[in-house]
C-alpha cells in the first residue's frame, strides 16, 4: 500500500447561515493517486478540495497533508506546495505566459535561469511551443491554450499535490477531450497526487483512479471507477452513473483485461517446418509466429503450414496480419476487428512482443456478464 498523503478526518464546513457545505467527511488519498470528486452543483465537491489549501477553513475536523495537520502550517507555505488549477484559469492579464507560469517559482525565490528553464520545460509538457507562446499575453490565447498555461502554472514549482477545480469545464467538447487525453499522458509521466473536481461523471471515470461521488456535503461512495460502475452504493450513485454503465465500463477496460494469453499458440519463426505437425497434434487451426525476442511476426494457418511444408518455403505466413495493442481500449479494438473483418486479433505489447489473443468470444462474454470473463484478468 503506498503511503497516505492526504487524510480528511471528520471534516465539516458549516457557513454562518447554517449551510452545511461539507458534512463530516473522512477519506484518505494515497501517493500517486488521482481522486475525482463528482456530484451535482452544491454537493460540496469544490468546497472539499478548497479545504485542503485552506481557501476554505473547516468548522470541524482535521486535514492532514503528509501527516501534518494543515491547520498548524503556515497557509502561504502550504499553498505554494499545492498546485492550483481552476475552471476560469485566472491568468494574470498583465503578465506574459512565461511570467504567469513562473510566478510561484518567483515567489519561492528561484534564480532567473532556473525559472526560465522550468518555463520552457513546462510549455513543452503542455504542448505549447515556447518560441511562439512564451511572450504572449493571456488575451492572445484561445480557451484551450489558456487552460494549458493554467495547468503549467499549477505544476510550475513541482508541487507534490495538485488541486484541479473543473479545469476543463468551460472548454468545448473537442478541446476538452484533447486536454483530458493529455492529462492522462501527463499523469503517467508525473507521479502526483491530484484532487480533481468535475460535474461530469464520464470525466470522473476517465481521469480518476478513484471517484468520490458527493451529495449534499457527504461522500456517497468513494471507489474505483470499475466498482462505481458495477456496484453503485445507492440509487443516487446509480443515477449519477447513468444508463450506459456497460458502455462506460467498456471504455475503461483495456484489451489486456479481457484477452487470453498466447501460451501454446506460438511457434518460433525458425521452426516453421514443424508447424503443420504441431497444429495437427494440438488440433489448432492457427499458430502465431514469433521471433527469438518474442516479437510477433505473423499468423500461420493450417493450410499455409501444410502447403509451405510441401514447397519448403519458410516465408509463408501473412505478414500484414492486423494486431491490437495491449493498452488499447476494448471498444476501439472491437471497431478494429469489425473494420478488418476478423473474429480474432493477436495482442502485442511494447516492441510488438506478443502478449495474447482476443476473440469475439471475449467480447461476447464481456457483453453478457458486463465484466471480464473468468480466469483472464492479467
Amino acid at each position: 500500500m503506498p503511503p497516505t498523503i492526504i487524510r480528511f478526518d471528520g471534516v465539516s464546513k458549516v457557513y454562518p447561515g447554517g449551510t452545511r457545505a461539507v458534512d463530516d467527511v473522512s477519506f484518505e488519498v494515497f501517493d500517486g493517486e488521482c481522486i475525482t470528486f463528482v456530484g451535482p452543483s452544491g454537493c460540496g465537491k469544490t468546497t472539499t478540495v478548497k479545504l485542503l489549501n485552506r481557501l476554505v477553513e473547516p468548522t470541524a475536523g482535521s486535514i492532514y497533508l503528509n501527516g501534518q495537520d494543515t491547520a498548524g502550517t503556515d497557509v502561504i507555505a502550504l499553498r505554494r506546495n499545492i498546485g492550483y488549477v481552476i475552471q476560469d484559469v485566472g491568468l494574470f492579464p498583465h503578465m506574459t505566459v512565461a511570467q504567469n507560469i513562473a510566478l510561484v517559482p518567483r515567489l519561492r525565490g528561484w534564480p532567473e535561469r532556473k525559472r526560465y528553464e522550468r518555463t520552457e520545460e513546462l510549455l513543452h509538457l503542455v504542448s505549447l511551443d515556447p518560441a511562439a507562446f512564451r511572450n504572449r499575453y493571456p488575451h492572445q490565447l484561445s480557451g484551450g491554450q489558456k487552460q494549458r498555461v493554467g495547468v503549467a502554472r499549477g505544476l510550475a514549482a513541482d508541487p507534490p499535490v495538485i488541486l484541479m477545480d473543473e479545469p476543463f469545464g468551460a472548454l468545448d467538447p473537442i478541446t476538452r477531450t484533447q486536454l483530458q487525453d493529455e492529462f492522462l499522458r501527463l499523469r503517467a509521466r508525473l507521479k502526483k497526487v491530484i484532487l480533481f473536481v468535475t460535474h461530469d461523471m464520464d470525466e470522473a471515470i476517465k481521469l480518476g483512479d478513484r471517484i468520490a461521488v458527493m451529495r449534499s456535503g457527504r461522500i456517497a461512495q468513494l471507489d474505483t471507477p470499475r466498482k462505481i460502475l458495477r456496484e453503485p452504493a445507492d440509487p443516487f450513485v446509480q443515477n449519477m452513473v447513468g444508463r450506459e454503465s456497460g458502455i462506460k465500463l467498456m471504455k475503461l477496460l483495456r484489451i489486456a483485461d479481457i484477452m487470453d494469453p498466447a501460451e501454446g499458440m506460438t511457434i518460433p519463426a525458425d521452426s516453421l517446418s514443424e508447424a503443420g505437425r504441431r497444429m495437427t497434434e494440438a488440433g489448432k487451426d492457427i499458430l502465431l509466429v514469433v521471433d527469438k525476442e518474442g516479437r510477433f511476426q505473423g499468423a500461420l494457418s493450417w493450410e499455409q503450414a501444410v502447403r509451405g511444408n510441401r514447397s519448403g518455403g519458410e516465408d509463408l505466413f501473412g505478414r500484414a496480419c492486423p494486431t491490437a495493442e495491449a493498452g488499447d481500449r476494448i471498444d476501439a479494438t472491437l471497431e478494429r476487428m469489425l473494420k478488418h473483418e476478423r473474429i480474432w486479433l493477436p495482442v502485442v505489447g511494447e516492441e510488438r512482443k506478443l502478449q495474447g489473443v482476443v476473440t469475439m468470444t471475449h467480447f461476447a462474454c464481456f457483453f453478457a456478464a458486463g465484466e471480464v470473463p473468468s480466469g483472464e484478468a492479467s
Partner: protein
Amino acid sequence: MSAIEYFIKNIGLVLKLTLEHIEITLIAVAISTVIGVAAGIFITRHQRAAAAVIGVAGVLYTIPSLALFGMLIPFIGIGLKPTLIALVLYSQLALIRNTYVGIIQIDPSIREAGRGMGMSNWQFLGMVELPVALPVIMAGIRTAAVMNIGTATIAAYIGAGGLGWLIFRGIASVNSDQIIAGAVPVIILAVGVDYLFILLERALTPAGLRR
C-alpha cells in the same frame, strides 16, 4: 493686440505665476494620490466602509470651492495651506473611486488563483492588483490634476498665488489684458496636463492590457 504686449512686457511675472500654479497643483496631486489610493485600497479590503467613504468624498466634492475656502480660513487662515487642503479634499472622490473600482473590477478568478497559489495580501496587491488597476487609477489622477488646475485658480482669492492672481487683479482693475494674460496660460496648462496624462496613462498601461 495689447494683451500680447502686456504678456511680453510682464513675461517674468507670468512665468513666475505659472510655475507657482504648477507647483500648487503638483503638491496637491501628489498628496491626494497618496491619500486617495491608500483609502481606495483600504475600502477594497473593508468593503462595508466603501459606501460610506465614497459617500463622504462625494459630499466633499459637491461643496462649492469658495464656500470651502470660506470654511477653512477661520481655522487655518489664508495662503498655501488651506488651498492644498481644499484641493486634496476635492481630489479624493476621483482618486478613491477610481482606485476602488480599478481593483474591485479585477476578475474574481484572478483573485482566487492568486490566493490559491500562495501570494500574500501585499504580494497580490503589488504584483497583480495595482498593475492591473493602474490605467483606471491613472485616469483618476488625471481628473484630479485637471480639476486642481481650475480650482487653484480660484485659490488666488485666498492668497495662494498662481495665475488666478492675474485674473483677479485684472477683474478688480478692469484690465482685460491682464485677465487674458492670466486666463490663457491656465487654459493651456489644463489642456496640456490633460493630454500629458493621456500619454502617461497609455505608457503605463501594461502591455498585456492593451488591446
